[in-house]
């Protein structure tokens, strides 16, 4: 747990998996899918597309009709389902907490089944409640009905993590909570994952959620057909086909705001003025910086208001000219959140704060808009996409000595993937390069995205 | 069995009719009383609570004990039978009437008052129709339950099919005693099903299509 770089997750491989009910069209048809260890893979798609079925086949709550499932090199298709499920975390909507058991008992369920001793279970329970930001002293002995929806969901996540399973399956876990709570739970999951590096398979119907949380996104169509498998950046920048385009909907650029963090764009630096300092000196600093306005900071360097040169000329020591305050966003907030904050405050700019609320700079609506324009043309890093298709071709899995599985793709699949990548690049190179050059030649002193925003790195830096 | 039935066909029909009419009439009487009590109680938590408790306690008292208690003041015959059957009919209906009336959306009542309906008109034209399906459900429970109570009331010489059961019992082993009891039991089941069917039909006819489930 303390070693934050250690990947504790396991690779999951679905091999040519089919689930059919009777004579009807199969719910999932000949699906082959690789889920890389320690990554968060989001399953999205319209309802009835087989994403949930696929998820439940991983822990065999639904038994596949044919095909096999391999976790960490071990074929789990034939092993005892109950034993398998004890090794896989499972989170459902509203947590699925057992109402007749206390929060502590709920979290300790799996360890108890694994026959841990009482003291160890108690320690583990407290540790996990702490991890999901619930004070064990307060919540351990409460019953689920005494908790809010968001808290119940947190306990659900804690319960799934109890036996430290390498894999976490999440079935629309945040579907039943209000948007604000959902945003907080999502951020918490990002933090937990940054610490634990589990393999997370997460089903959602909300594409924005997929963009926000996923290292990878699988877009499913009816019958468990994979329409596209890629990073959020790849999918947003280069939707594979019309279906994906429709599913993403309009405003792909806007959705990319959910990918970019405030710290990734260039902030403007306004002169700062401390409360209570000599007003004339402060006014001088503004003049030197050719700035009309400055940011007022309190004794802890937290931004508390704006102040203009004209205001400063009228006072001897710096006081706050008004009580309006200043909209602030944290530097690890998404651009989406930043834009939201500014719109809500009715302001075209917001102060950016770092650790302990210290002032870092100023972000403006313009910065965000430039970022949107830039983002849609952002070069997508050529990362090798894990296997995912419905052709029925099975990659030959070979387990190396270190337990890592490598796959040799069937030849035509390799070709398809190459085609896809090159076509994407070709498309990019025609009209977009021009715009990219225009954009990158803009004066960096203005409110623009920095020279090397390198946004695709953000996926792995979410800490 | 066949000759037993054909010999006493008229007797059976008349006893069945008596049984049916005893329960049906008591049911109507009980419904009126229950709605009146519920109308008096439903807006007051304490009164509703008391009515509910009385109803629960009443349902716990064995019917045979109540019949016994009624003999002293009322003697034998129709009077104790009607009293006891009405009493047991009353309890489920009362409880359901309270649930139904208090379940009516208060904003609807206010809307009715707002368009100038009097308190009484509001009760009969808004609250009662909305609570009616629940009350009717209570009536069905009452009807089924009191079919058996009515049979026991034959012990105090009340009317109906219970007499076939008790006469068979008193002549146990004698000619046709078994047939007599079976006839009584089966006929009660049959008219219970008929009355339940009629109540369902009544529900279809009297429940506004807007609130039918």
């Amino acid at each position, binding site marked *: 747990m303390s070693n934050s770089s250690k990947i504790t997750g396991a690779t999951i491989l679905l091999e040519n998996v089919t689930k059919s009910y009777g004579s009807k069209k199969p719910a999932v048809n000949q699906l082959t899918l690789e889920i890389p260890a320690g990554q968060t893979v989001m399953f999205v798609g319209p309802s009835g597309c087989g994403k949930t079925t696929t998820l439940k086949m991983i822990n065999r709550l639904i038994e596949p009709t044919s095909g096999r499932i391999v976790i960490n090199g071990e074929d789990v298709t034939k092993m005892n389902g109950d034993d398998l499920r004890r090794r896989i975390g499972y989170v459902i909507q509203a947590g699925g907490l057992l109402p007749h058991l206390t929060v502590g008992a709920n979290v300790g369920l799996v360890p108890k089944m694994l026959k841990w001793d009482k003291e160890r279970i108690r320690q583990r329970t407290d540790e996990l409640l702490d991890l999901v930001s619930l004070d064990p002293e307060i919540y351990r002995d409460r019953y689920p009905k005494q908790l809010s929806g968001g808290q119940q969901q947190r306990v659900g996540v804690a319960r799934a993590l109890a036996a430290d399973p390498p894999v976490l399956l999440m079935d629309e876990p945040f579907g039943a909570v209000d948007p604000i709570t959902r945003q907080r739970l999502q951020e918490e999951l990002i933090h937990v994952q940054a610490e634990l590096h589990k393999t997370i398979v997460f089903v959602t119907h909300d594409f924005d959620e997929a963009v926000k949380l996923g290292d990878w996104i699988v877009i499913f169509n009816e019958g468990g057909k994979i329409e596209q498998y890629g990073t959020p950046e790849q999918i947003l920048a280069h939707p594979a086909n019309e279906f994906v385009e429709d599913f993403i909907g309009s405003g792909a650029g806007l959705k990319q705001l959910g990918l970019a963090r405030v710290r990734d764009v260039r902030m403007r630096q306004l002169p700062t003025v401390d409360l209570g300092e000599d007003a004339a000196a402060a006014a001088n600093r503004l003049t030197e910086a050719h700035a009309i306005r400055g940011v007022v900071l309190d004794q802890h360097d937290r931004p508390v208001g704006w102040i203009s040169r004209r205001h400063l000329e009228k006072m001897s020591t710096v006081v706050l000219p008004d009580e309006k305050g200043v909209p602030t966003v944290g530097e690890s907030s998404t651009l989406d959140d930043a834009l939201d904050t500014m719109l809500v405050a009715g302001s075209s700019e917001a102060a950016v704060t770092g650790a302990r609320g210290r002032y870092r700079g100023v972000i403006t609506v313009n910065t965000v808009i430039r970022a949107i324009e830039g983002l849609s043309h952002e070069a997508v890093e050529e990362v090798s996409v894990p296997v995912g298709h419905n052709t029925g071709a099975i990659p030959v899995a070979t387990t190396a000595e270190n337990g890592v599985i490598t796959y040799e793709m069937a030849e035509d699949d390799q070709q398809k993937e190459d085609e896809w990548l090159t076509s994407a690049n070709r498309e990019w190179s025609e009209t977009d390069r021009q715009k990219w050059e225009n954009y990158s030649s803009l004066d960096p002193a203005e409110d623009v995205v920095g020279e090397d925003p390198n946004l695709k790195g953000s996926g792995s830096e979410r800490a | 069995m066949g000759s037993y039935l054909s010999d006493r066909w008229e007797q059976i029909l008349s006893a069945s009719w008596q049984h049916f009419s005893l329960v049906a009439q008591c049911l109507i009487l009980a419904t009126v009383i229950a709605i009146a009590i519920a109308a008096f109680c439903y807006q007051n938590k304490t009164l509703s609570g008391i009515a509910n408790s009385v109803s629960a306690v009443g349902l716990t008292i064995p019917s045979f004990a109540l019949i*016994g208690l009624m003999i002293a003041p009322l003697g034998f015959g129709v009077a104790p039978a009607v009293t006891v059957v009405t009493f047991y009919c009353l309890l489920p209906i009362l409880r359901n009437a309270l649930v139904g009336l208090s379940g009516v959306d208060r904003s609807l009542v206010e809307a009715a008052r707002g368009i100038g309906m009097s308190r009484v008109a509001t009760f009969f034209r808004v609250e009662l129709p909305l609570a009616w399906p629940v009350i009717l459900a209570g009536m069905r429970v009452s009807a089924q339950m009191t079919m058996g109570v009515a049979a026991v009331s034959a012990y105090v010489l009340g009317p109906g099919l219970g007499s076939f059961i008790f006469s068979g019992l008193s002549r146990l082993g004698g000619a046709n005693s078994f047939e007599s009891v079976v006839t009584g039991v089966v006929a009660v089941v049959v008219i*219970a099903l008929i009355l339940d069917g009629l109540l369902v039909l009544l529900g279809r006819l009297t429940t506004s299509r807007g609130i039918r489930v």
Partner: protein
Amino acid sequence: MSATTSEKTADLTAGSSWKALVIQPIALAVILGLMVWWLFAADLTETERITLDPGYLWGLTLQHLKLTAVSALFVLITAIPLGILLTRRPFRGVSGLFMALANIGQAAPIVGLIVLFAFWMGFGTPAAMVTLVAYAFLPVLKNTMVGLDAVDARLIEAARGMGMSALTVLWKVELPLAVPVMLAGIRTALVLLVGSATLATFIDGGGLGLLITTGVNLALDRVLIFGSLLVAVFALIIDWIARVVEYLATPKGL
């Protein structure tokens, strides 16, 4: 008919607040006290004294209790397992048929059934008990099934997802969550049993009903009233015990 019985069940199962649980036994104790006082103070005739002899009354009460308790036990050990079985997947198909038959059976008058069983098994306690078991079977069976069916399917899946076996899920999740509904059915059954046990007297099955028939047959109004009251108080005591059990056995988180 199926709706009827479930509502009947619902009718008898209004939850009990702790206040009601305290008031009920106090009121019953007062009534019982008055009855005992009357028994010793009243100027009874010779026949009345014989029928209302405390030792004799105690014997009848024990008989009544035995009738109720033994048949309740039989109902529990048959109806609950059957209810569990009928809610398991392979048997769901036949459960509808079962319920329909049971519901029609429930419409039969108990006084008639008890006599029919006496024809078959002869007079006496065994026939009475068999009738009582048959009669109280339905509420327990029905509430077991309703209670188990009402358990949120997603909870069961969550439990399965954690790696609980089907049996563990039944034991740790389904049954605890179904307990309140099942207990309500058991209480309904107990109330039915206590009441129906008074009819056992018609087939020489014993119990407190004997006081009522004796009162009627010998035209002893005081015995009749005393007996009826005693039966009523006894029924309410059983009901109270069932309520207390219900109150205590319901899992706290529900």
